[in-house]
């Protein structure tokens, strides 16, 4: 029981934190059409987060709701992976990160829709359609930037170098995953193949680095998460117990 709850919160936190980051583009995108596109992705992610939090709240009981879970847990209680809390940086970083995460989510949700408990499976299945589109959109941007101009290529390379150390955390199984019967480590080969194909089309090399950063799933985050939560949670914490 405990394992499942932590796992659902992990899924919810992932979606929320990336949704929060992507929403920072709203009103500041490189072109109107893409401003709208990234906001759509953000809305999908926030929607996924809500579904998972609502389920977690039901399991937890004690009057908890999607909002108590999102707004009243502390830095050390969040279970999202580190990659998703990194600053949005430039369009190359944002689209590459989206690509990495959507590729992972696609494989994961395919697995969850058949294996996990019914409710998680249903959320995963519904979200899969969204994820498929996110993957298509983000992979196209990776190819565009890799194949575009010298500058876009340089920026994509930088984004690759910066984000790669965070990739491994997706595939390092935490206890709550193992106990929920999820096999993230089994997804790595398929993920790598997918990423390799896209990077090849973009004319980019797969990065080689032995650096890895992890800890998010255990609640050991980067310094960025504290600021995200301070901003996101401020009203709920300043005016406890209010309806909004």
């Amino acid at each position, binding site marked *: 029981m405990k394992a499942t709850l932590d796992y659902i919160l992990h899924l919810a936190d992932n979606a929320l934190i990336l949704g929060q980051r992507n929403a920072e583009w709203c009103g500041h995108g490189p072109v109107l*059409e*893409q401003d*709208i596109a990234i906001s759509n992705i953000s809305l999908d992610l926030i929607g996924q987060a809500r579904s998972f939090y609502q389920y977690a709240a039901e399991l937890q009981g004690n009057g908890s709701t999607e909002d108590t879970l999102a707004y009243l847990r502390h830095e050390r209680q969040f279970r999202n992976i580190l990659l998703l809390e990194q600053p949005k940086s430039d369009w190359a970083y944002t689209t590459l990160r989206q690509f990495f995460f959507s590729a992972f989510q696609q494989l994961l949700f395919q697995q969850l829709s058949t294996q996990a408990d019914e409710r998680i499976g249903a959320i995963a299945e519904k979200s899969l359609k969204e994820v498929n589109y996110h993957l*298509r959109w983000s992979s196209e941007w990776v190819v565009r930037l890799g194949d575009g101009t010298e500058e876009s290529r340089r920026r994509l390379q930088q984004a690759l170098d910066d984000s790669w150390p965070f990739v491994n955390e997706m595939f390092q199984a935490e206890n709550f995953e193992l106990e929920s019967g999820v096999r993230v480590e089994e997804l790595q080969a398929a993920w790598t193949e997918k990423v390799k194909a896209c990077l090849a089309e973009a004319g980019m090399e797969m990065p080689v680095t032995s650096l890895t950063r992890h800890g998010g799933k255990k609640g050991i985050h980067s310094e960025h998460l504290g600021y995200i939560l301070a901003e996101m949670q401020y009203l709920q914490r300043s005016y406890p117990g209010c309806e909004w």
Partner: protein
Amino acid sequence: MNTSIRRFFYGDIPGQESGGTPAPEGPKNDWPLWEVFIRSKQGLDHKHVGSLHATDAQMAIENARDVYTRRQEGVSIWVVKSQDIHASRPEEAGELYDPAADKIYRHPTFYDLPDAISHM
């Protein structure tokens, strides 16, 4: 306000003939303009809904999805580069469309039939 007029819309009509004065050179950075047509549900025609910018047809379809179907307005999208649309000219309207006006016998209401006839 910059008021130099160029043609972006309906490719074959020179700007000056529709009231504008052509400008010498346009900016290079704008992505091409596309016209968007959406089928709102199966069984209906695609209908022009507006335009947007995109680098190619694939991106134009995806942008149209994000811009014009946020509220389930469509089940199918057509896009075509604005400059590839050919249009009849307003000044030709007389010779093109007016001659149909007096062919009233083409319309079913032209024929007076007894009320007893049904299904016709």
